[in-house]
């Protein structure tokens, strides 16, 4: 990979940025002050918002913050205390780098060839991680504090203990990172990039209930949703990704486990070569419908009201628990994970 282009761009931006400057620029999206009161959360109807995020090449940190702020403003107007962004939303900050078009071309060509993809991905992440993480975390911290919202902000790729991870973050209304979640089920492209899965599911308690951050790649699998429900989650996020997974099973997953599923998406992003994603959606367990329950569709967000006050919705037909069945399920001789994923793991 022509990493010198990437390296010089990142170096220039890193030189110009600092925590203080990033936070100052992000605070500029609140021209009327930064002292919004914590919004009231009704015990009988919590609003949940799925963002339709439109990443683009930006020329300033303020503009970069504004692209994340658009769905948040719509959510605030709807009175929603919670907004979810799609996974890898933080990669939009690559558009902040000098000569961003060239940088994106370099990244695309580096990742195009499967044989060298893992090396190219690792190198690119090592170069960009410090800058991207610093801007991403500080920007969302300020936005969460400014809007007084819980934000499942999506995330970015990073190296952790020598392993490449796809990590998502949850920010509290006071701007702290409440939890992070490494992607549990990877897309084939990510496996070829050498990304490693997370092994645990974070399920932090918030004032609207426990929240788990999943991904579109989980939609076909009951396991992450069942674990989230067993850990007490009432809300999960699972949104569109650049890898084009099928989101249609999400309504069924939410109904099976009595979970509200917030499914953010991407708007078309020609700068990043992203086509228009599916419509953002909120699936409510009690609706029993295949379609989303989002009641307010805006340009940049879809919001729905969920009643999370009582116990999870009860169904006469699916309430039975059979621990002995799970014993047999977990004891069964399953395929060796290392054997199945061996070539990717070695990469």
């Amino acid at each position: 990979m022509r990493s010198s282009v990437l390296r010089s761009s990142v170096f220039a931006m890193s030189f110009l940025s600092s925590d203080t400057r990033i936070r100052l620029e992000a605070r500029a999206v609140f021209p009327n002050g930064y002292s919004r009161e914590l919004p009231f959360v009704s015990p009988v109807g919590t609003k949940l918002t799925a963002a339709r995020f439109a990443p683009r090449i930006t020329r300033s940190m303020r503009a970069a913050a504004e692209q994340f702020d658009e769905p948040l403003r719509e959510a605030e107007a709807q009175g929603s205390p919670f907004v979810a962004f799609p996974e890898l939303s933080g990669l939009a900050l690559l558009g902040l780098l000098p000569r961003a078009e060239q940088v994106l071309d370099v990244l695309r060509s580096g990742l195009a060839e499967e044989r060298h993809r893992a090396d190219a991905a690792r190198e690119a992440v090592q170069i960009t991680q410090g800058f991207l993480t610093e801007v991403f975390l500080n920007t969302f911290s300020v936005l969460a504090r400014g809007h007084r919202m819980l934000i499942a902000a999506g995330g970015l790729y990073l190296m952790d203990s020598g392993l490449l991870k796809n990590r998502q973050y949850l920010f509290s209304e006071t701007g702290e990172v409440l939890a992070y979640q490494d992607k549990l089920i990877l897309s084939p492209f990510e496996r070829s990039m050498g990304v490693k899965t997370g092994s645990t599911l974070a399920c932090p308690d918030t004032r609207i209930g426990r929240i788990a951050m999943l991904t579109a790649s989980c939609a076909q699998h009951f396991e992450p949703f069942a674990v989230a429900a067993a850990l007490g989650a009432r809300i999960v996020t699972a949104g569109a990704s650049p890898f084009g997974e099928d989101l249609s099973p999400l309504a069924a997953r939410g109904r099976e486990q009595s979970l509200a599923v917030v499914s953010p998406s991407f708007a078309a992003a020609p700068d990043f070569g992203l086509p228009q994603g599916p419509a953002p959606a909120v699936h409510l367990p009690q609706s029993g419908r295949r379609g989303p329950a989002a009641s307010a569709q805006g340009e940049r967000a879809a919001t729905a009201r969920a009643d999370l006050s009582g116990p999870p919705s009860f169904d006469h037909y699916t309430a039975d628990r059979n621990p002995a069945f799970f014993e047999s399920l977990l004891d069964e001789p399953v395929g060796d994970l290392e054997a199945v994923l061996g070539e990717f793991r070695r990469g």
Partner: protein
Amino acid sequence: MEPIRAAVVPVDAPPPPDTQLVVFSDPKPYMAEALAAQMLSRAVQYARRYGVYLVPQRFLAERSLCLCLLSPAGVPLGAQRATHLNLDYRAERLRRADRILPFDTPIGRVALLVDVDLEMPHAVRQAAREGAQLLLASHFLQPFDLTAERVRLVAAGASHANGIPLVGSMGGFGVICPPQEEPLVGSFEETPVAAAVTPAAAPEALRAPMEEAAALLRSYGRLFTETGGDADAQ
């Protein structure tokens, strides 16, 4: 595998011409143990008369809710006990099996999903992991719980998530769902529900993610083996 022409019809109703596989749609909860032998005898006659593979009504055997598959010669090819029960049956203290066991037949490797097992994603996933190529289901639902939307949601959830075709009955509805298509759902008011399906195991592309998902479940195994995943009980 070759496509097979499947139909879901009311009990004892003749299938459409050239049908190879029939699932009976039974609006009653189950056939009592004392009447099960008589019911199965009639089912054998039906299978022979029309030359079809047949999934007859749900029935009780040794206090277990069961489903079976008969060959066109009327020979039982396999049977399955329910692994989960609705709360009425739990109150009746019916017994539960601990495993879905698919079996090989001339029309592919079949998993029978008895009653609410169709709504249990872990039961369907176990069938998929055991190599099932065709899901055959028969599920009782009270009329006031039965909607076409629920039938579609459950059928698509089971079939699409595992990439395996489904033929089944839910309450008064029949449903046939190929893995990547919208479920065909009907209530027999005018015609039986009939379509061709091609038996196929979970696709290779699902194998690696299925292993990752199973690894996650295994790492939280005690949440499920102690309480079945009930958050309130933990």
